């Protein structure tokens, strides 16, 4: 276990992949939280290839009662959702979210990173403090990078817990995202006659935001709000 201190240990042969698969299985089984590849690597013997082991494991559990699911850049076992009916006892009663909270959440998810003013612009009504607080408390949203515009407003983005809760691998898998984008409904279109230069805000950013990631599946699917801050 002193390998960390002695990088030379990595020269020792890593365990066979079947054994690595067992290890990943044990680690993922032991926790309710998704575990990142990086953390897996940190806990497995040196030279292990958790990504490869995961691929095997994922395949092994296909169609089983539990599934290996991807949540952001982390992995977890979750029961197959067709078996949810067996788990009445385990069902967690979540506080019912207000319509305002649900819409605010959706706006953050689809428009992230998004400022409070932008949320208000989309909903046409001011966002009450409690709404944001509730979503923060649920850990479904978090603060993104400040927007580099006058006043440097904070932005909000969705979290890995959000993805986990809604069974999403990445924010780009949000339902209807592509259609919304195609319809231009995710454009940050400022009202005509407003001071903002129109080109700056628009669709280019949104397209980049989601398309950038589509082909490299190893990328953290939780969109890095840093990329889009303008």
């Amino acid at each position: 276990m002193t390998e960390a201190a002695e990088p030379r240990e990595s020269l020792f042969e890593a365990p066979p992949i079947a054994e690595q698969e067992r290890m990943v299985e044990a680690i993922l089984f032991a926790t309710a939280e998704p575990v990142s590849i990086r953390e897996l690597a940190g806990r497995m013997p040196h030279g292990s290839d958790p990504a490869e082991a995961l691929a095997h494991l994922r395949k092994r559990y296909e169609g089983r009662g539990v599934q290996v699911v991807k949540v952001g850049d982390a992995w977890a076992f979750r029961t197959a959702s067709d078996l949810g009916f067996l788990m009445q006892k385990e069902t967690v009663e979540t506080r019912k979210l207000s319509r305002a909270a649900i819409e605010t959440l959706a706006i953050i998810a689809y428009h992230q990173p998004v400022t409070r003013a932008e949320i208000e612009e989309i909903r046409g009504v001011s966002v009450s403090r409690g709404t944001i607080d509730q979503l923060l408390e649920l850990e479904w949203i978090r603060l993104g990078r400040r927007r580099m515009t006058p006043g440097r407003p904070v932005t909000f983005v969705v979290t890995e817990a959000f993805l986990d809760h809604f069974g999403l691998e990445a924010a780009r898998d949000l339902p209807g995202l592509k259609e919304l984008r195609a319809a231009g409904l995710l454009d940050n279109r400022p009202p005509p006659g407003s001071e903002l230069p129109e080109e700056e805000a628009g669709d280019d950013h949104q397209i980049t935001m989601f398309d950038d990631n589509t082909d490299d599946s190893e990328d953290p699917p939780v969109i890095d709000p840093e990329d889009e801050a303008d």
Partner: protein
Amino acid sequence: MTDSIFDTAVADRVAAEALIVDVDGYEGPLDLLLTLARTQKVDLRKISVLNLAEQYLAFVEKAKQLRIELAADYLVMAAWLAFLKSRLLLPPDPTEEGPSGEELAAHLAFQLERLQAMRDVSARLMARDRLGRDFFARGITEDVTRVRKVTYTATILDLMQAYARIRTKDEFRPFVFDRDSVLTMEQALDRLRGMIGYAGEWADLMSFLPQDWTGDPTRRRSATAATFAATLELAKEGKVELRQGETFAPIQIRQKGARA
């Protein structure tokens, strides 16, 4: 047929009344506009913004009649829509600055469509299989015990330096005279007190050194220093006088008042 027309008319009236009564139920003017837009029963993209503006203004008018107090933002929206309506109805004035009525209308339509889209995806999002409701995480989790292991390390260089340091400390320890090579000032003073009575004439300080302390340089140095210090002490007591011809010349002493 007449029934259905009648029904529709009633339904519309009921809806219109509901709009007014439920004004608190709307999430702002945009939400209200969206609801009104739906009564046009057309694709939001084909909505008549002019009609919509008129619907909204009519709504506000009716609310006033019923003495329903509308929040300020509903009234702001009403004012804006009145302005939009005039823009849309009047022929464009080329000298006028700012966006055209069509541009403003298009943006309003966009806002409504976007709000509707967000509502739709909200519903789709909430209808997804959800953790803790449709799928579940591990029930019995095993705590990962965090073992903090501290390993100490040292290199051979550390080891050698440490040893070097210890041995060097030995070599360069503050120099201490070994006892048998040190003449203390007390010894010198004792000796001088006994001899000073005989120093009537100027005599070289060195002649007062003990006989056996003049050979070995170490001993001579010590004896010289101690004897010199002792003469200074005696001079302070007023018992001897000292003189030196020049720098590094022999130091001479004699009993004070010997000539007096």
